[in-house]
């Protein structure tokens, strides 16, 4: 088997046997073709020009980056001083004055400067957008329109233009108009999405009992960017047959809510807000983090058969009677649920992360050979710290991290493009990021005035 240790542990009996082996050998051949360099493979969006313009809005920046990973030619337009997004960075940490998120999302773009406050700047902008298929506008709603270079004006000379607008409340609706001056950030987009209101523990003292944002990542900005790309590519698919462009409007303040959808389901069926339930879950349990001997493990054994399996492997069948069914375990009463958590943690804390992971995997491997699967698949894994993840061999085999040496002699790591595709894999082709780095080439190529 591919990229393999010998006799890898499998968790399905269907992966065993001669016939499965033959099928998987064919599959391996396909996978081997996907493992190597992406360099000589075609790109899905080659020949598509994307213009990116915005101010301190990473939803727009990331959307353009993702289109660039799929092969579009992305030209990022900045004011002569650069996009203030360049300074948005954890604790002010930067490389040559450029923040880390910008470095991470700078790939595959051409960087030019245009002053849209001048007549020449606007003329140049129009020359570019006349040649473009997609524009990403992450400025204030109506800002380009009032300069005479918004969707209404640009589609006159380029009816095929796909105009992707990204803003907190969107480019239409009365609230969008009323609050159009409020700029976008990830935190405010999370808040208006109601995301923090379902996280955290209301039993804690202030301010630890406050609604709690998703940590560590820009949960709303990345969701918005991916939505913008999905929207743009849906419009692009129509454009392929009709040649017609259209406007695609993204409200970052609604991205998480409307895509994940559970908040709407809950609100509609319960007609009240959801109470926060700390480390529990409304649909699944056990499904959370537990303390063990040397850190934390994550346990996912939510289905009834998985839960029975968990009790067996932990030798805690005594809990079966009270917590047998999923509706016993996902109770709305946190204090009651806490009883099960405490009992499980009592046993889990006697073992190390590795011991528990191994126990669960061995159990599942045996389970897999049972045609009725009645023993379930309780899963336990170490709750990994990012620094542990970075050392994981699996990710280096899959080339998930790319080391960049920039011309100034700085070294840093960025995550590579995902996913893996057999014909048109997304990829990182360049990593430059300087303000106006491509002025000369792009000004020449598109006949822009200096």
């Amino acid at each position, binding site marked *: 088997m591919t990229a393999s240790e010998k006799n*890898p542990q499998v968790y*399905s009996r269907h*992966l065993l046997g001669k016939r499965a082996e033959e099928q*998987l050998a064919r*599959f391996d051949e*396909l996978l081997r073709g996907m493992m190597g360099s992406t360099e000589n493979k075609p790109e*899905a969006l080659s020949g598509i020009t994307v213009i990116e313009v915005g101010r301190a809005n990473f939803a727009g920046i990331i959307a353009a980056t993702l289109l660039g990973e799929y092969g579009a030619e992305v030209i990022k337009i900045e004011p002569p001083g650069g996009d*203030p997004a360049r300074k948005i*960075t*954890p604790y*002010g940490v930067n490389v040559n*004055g450029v923040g880390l998120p910008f*470095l991470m999302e700078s790939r595959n773009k051409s960087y030019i400067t245009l002053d849209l406050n001048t007549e020449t700047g606007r003329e140049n902008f129009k020359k570019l957008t006349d040649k473009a298929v997609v524009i990403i506008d992450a400025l204030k709603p109506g800002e380009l329109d009032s300069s005479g270079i918004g969707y209404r004006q640009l589609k006159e000379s380029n009816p095929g233009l796909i105009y992707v607008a990204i803003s907190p409340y969107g480019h*239409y609706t009365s609230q*969008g108009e009323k609050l159009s001056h*409020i700029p976008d*950030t990830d935190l*405010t*987009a999370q*808040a*208006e999405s*109601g995301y*923090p209101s379902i996280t955290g523990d209301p039993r804690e003292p202030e301010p630890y009992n406050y609604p*709690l944002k*998703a940590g560590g*990542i820009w949960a709303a900005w990345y969701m918005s960017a*991916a*939505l913008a790309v999905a929207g743009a590519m*849906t*419009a*692009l698919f129509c454009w392929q047959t009709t040649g017609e462009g259209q*406007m695609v409007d993204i409200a970052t*303040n609604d991205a998480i*809510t*409307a895509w*994940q959808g*559970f908040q709407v389901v809950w*609100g509609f069926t*319960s*007609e009240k807000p959801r109470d926060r339930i*700390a480390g529990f879950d409304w649909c*699944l349990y056990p499904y959370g983090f537990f303390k063990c001997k040397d850190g934390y493990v*994550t346990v996912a054994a939510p289905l009834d058969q998985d839960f029975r399996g968990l009790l067996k492997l932990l030798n805690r069948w005594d809990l079966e009677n009270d917590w047998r069914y999923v509706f016993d375990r996902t109770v709305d009463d946190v204090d009651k649920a806490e009883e099960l958590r405490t009992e499980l943690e009592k046993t889990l804390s006697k073992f190390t992360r590795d011991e528990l992971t191994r126990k669960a995997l061995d159990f599942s491997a045996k389970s897999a050979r049972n045609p009725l699967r009645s023993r379930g698949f309780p*899963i336990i894994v170490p709750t*990994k710290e*990012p620094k542990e993840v*970075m050392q994981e*061999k699996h990710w280096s*085999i899959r080339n998930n*991290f790319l*080391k960049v040496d920039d011309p100034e002699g700085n070294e840093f790591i*960025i*995550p590579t493009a*995902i*996913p893996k*595709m*057999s*014909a*048109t894999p*997304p990829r990182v082709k360049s990593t430059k990021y300087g303000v106006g780095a491509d002025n000369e080439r792009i000004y020449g190529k598109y006949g822009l005035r200096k």
Partner: protein
Amino acid sequence: MSENYFSFTRQIFNTAEAAGKPEAFKGIRVLDLSRIIFGPVISRWLALFGAEVIKVEEPDEGDTWRLGTYWAKYRKDANPYFQALNPNKYFVGIDLKKEKGKELVLELAKKSDIVVENFRAGLAEAWGIGYTTVSEINPKIIYISCSGYGQWGPLRFFPSWDLIAQSMSGVARLTGFPGKEKYKLQDYYGDFLPGLFGVTSVLAALNYRAKHGKGQYIDMAQAEAIMRIMPNWTYMSVTGNDLESTGNVDPTMAPSNIFKTHDGHFVAIAIATDEQFSGLAKAMGMPELSRDKRFGDTLDRLKPENAAEINKIVEGWVPNKTENEVIELAEKYAFPAARVMDDWRIVKDEWRRERGSIVDINDEMYGEETSALPAAMLEKNPAKIKWLAKPLGYHNNYVLKKLLGLSAKEIENLRKEEVVGTWDNRVGHKPPPYYDVSKDPMFNYDEGKINDRK
């Protein structure tokens, strides 16, 4: 242009006209073998924009998420959460473990443009319904396999859930206050974000195919999608340290936090630029702050000691203001602020109704429900909900008769051999108690009667 910009946009995005607009993926057929969330949301996007999605489930057993309801609640014997994830799809019950079941699925794959699966890595291949088999009978197929860690590498057979992928990617220790309990990203973010990345890859492949006529295979890994959006790798490589949890503070913005208002609501304020900071300083009646050496420039303001200081100042100011006052000032002085909404306010929210991202629908089987459409609004080809998820095997006759051309007798034989089937008597699987499927022309797939109704 004399017409106000927002009057123009309101007209082109008029939600009252959305139903009559053409569908982006009309004529595209998707064979969806996936279950729970990560795979089904990929076909959800395609179904909302007009693709014909055939969702294959195991007879009697069904998609696990039919029972994945909150606090074991059902509505009209259905799980509203499952319904929200599977609109506009066709539900067919086929047993993939039977040879004849595989044959049916391969017949469907032959007539499809896209296949979605999220079995354990390699399992679809081992069953003989993987890309290598399907691409032989349908070379233009786009086939996406969704798994926890991808189809190759030492972790490939390792099992996954949203939360397991969160834990294996390292994001799971980052939500919470420093030194306090940590929390997961709620509502299965570890399924929905990777699912959305999956959508973009399928669409990239579809656009490529439209131009070059070639299909391809996609290996979509849940944990990889989460790792793609984490700043930790870059931060570690530059500083040698890792980023840790920061409560409600976004360490890339200062000030930034969630604050309590005078009227007991919560608001988020986050400042990304000098211009925004100067706006906030004016709104707080402290314009001199933007001339303060510690706060004037973004990179200085973000230094931990300065960020803590400015957060304290904002913390002293917000409790004197109501939620409305903060939002009005944010608009007036152009700084980022927002209410912390909750599920119930969201459902009642006029703004979302006007946008068309929350819609009331009237389903033939389930009546009136409220559901969500993605926040990406297309002017000319908008997403629509035509019907909610149906009972297990509800579209068997439609799929087997219309798409595969089987006779009633052949279907009856397959049913007897338990190759195809519908629900057993469980909630989440079966029709509502008041609904008589035997009189339903779609369930029986009586073409004449269906056309009459239109």
